[in-house]
């Protein structure tokens, strides 16, 4: 049932078309974590206050998808393509980062005054990544989750002012 819900939701998420286009391309690495997995993680008991807050945030996540490509020459092309697929009527650009190595943009979708989807798109000199997270999202906690599960880029959410959620 969860798989069905997840797949139904995936059809509606921001870059479902982008995922569909490249998910069978073996040059891409892919990670999909279901809401069931996150709900299992929510049963963990944290040792510190930070861990407890992180587990609380995890429990509200309904799914995660990552598509990435390393050692590639077309990372900037992929970056632009992924950005162009974000439906601007549903998503708001939250943050853009540009440095000499990479460009990164964060988009959020709100539902009922809460963030229901977060999209991170990163295009570097030779690497590309798109991440989409859906559920009830606390941006501050996402930076901690990013550090804990070693997702490069999410730590930038630490700099977001507490106006969301």
């Amino acid at each position, binding site marked *: 049932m969860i798989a069905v819900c997840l797949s139904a939701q995936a059809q509606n998420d921001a870059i479902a078309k982008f995922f569909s286009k490249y998910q069978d391309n*073996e040059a891409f*690495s892919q990670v*999909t*974590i279901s809401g069931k997995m996150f709900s299992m993680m929510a*049963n*963990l008991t944290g040792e510190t206050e930070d861990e407890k807050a992180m587990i609380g945030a995890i429990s509200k996540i309904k799914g995660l998808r990552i598509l990435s490509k390393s050692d590639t020459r077309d990372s900037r092309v992929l970056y632009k393509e992924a950005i162009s697929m974000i439906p601007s009527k549903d998503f708001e650009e939250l943050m853009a980062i540009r440095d000499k190595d990479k460009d990164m943009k964060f988009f959020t979708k709100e539902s009922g005054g809460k963030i229901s989807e977060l999209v991170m798109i990163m295009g570097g000199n030779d690497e590309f990544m798109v991440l989409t997270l859906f559920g009830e999202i606390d941006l501050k906690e996402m930076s901690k989750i990013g550090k804990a599960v070693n997702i490069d880029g999410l730590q930038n959410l630490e700099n977001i002012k507490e106006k969301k959620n």
Partner: protein
Amino acid sequence: MKKFNILIVLVLLTSGAIAQSKSYSTLKEKFIDRPDVHSFSISGWVGRLVLRMTDEHEFKNAIKELDHVRILIIPRVEFAYQNLTVKGFKKLLTQDSFEQLAFFRENGEDVTLYLREGKNKRNHYFVLVEEDQEVVAIELKGYLDPELLNSSSKLASNK
């Protein structure tokens, strides 16, 4: 007494067969007689013994309620020979009440994790590894404590 012992053995054998999920037993029935298909089965007790012998004490507690591990290694050509697909088998897993927990693809190798929750911590975990030349199906029966797995991995990474 002898009859009683035979009865006990039969009951144990039958319960062992039932303990396999329908998905695993279907896969095994289809492929077990084919050349280059390998099948292993070990009890949780043996698994814990192996971890103890290899000095991996951290994970021993996390699998203390694991009853059984079954592994089936099938060359991809056998799927084609039987006119079957891994995609089709994944559908069977879903019909058999397995829920997909996670999917990972790295360097053309796909790993999918499934869970079928049972009563009294009698879960079935299914790991499907799709490599270039072969497919590895791993079924674990019992209970893997996420809390202990988490603390075990912390201990292991601090080694």
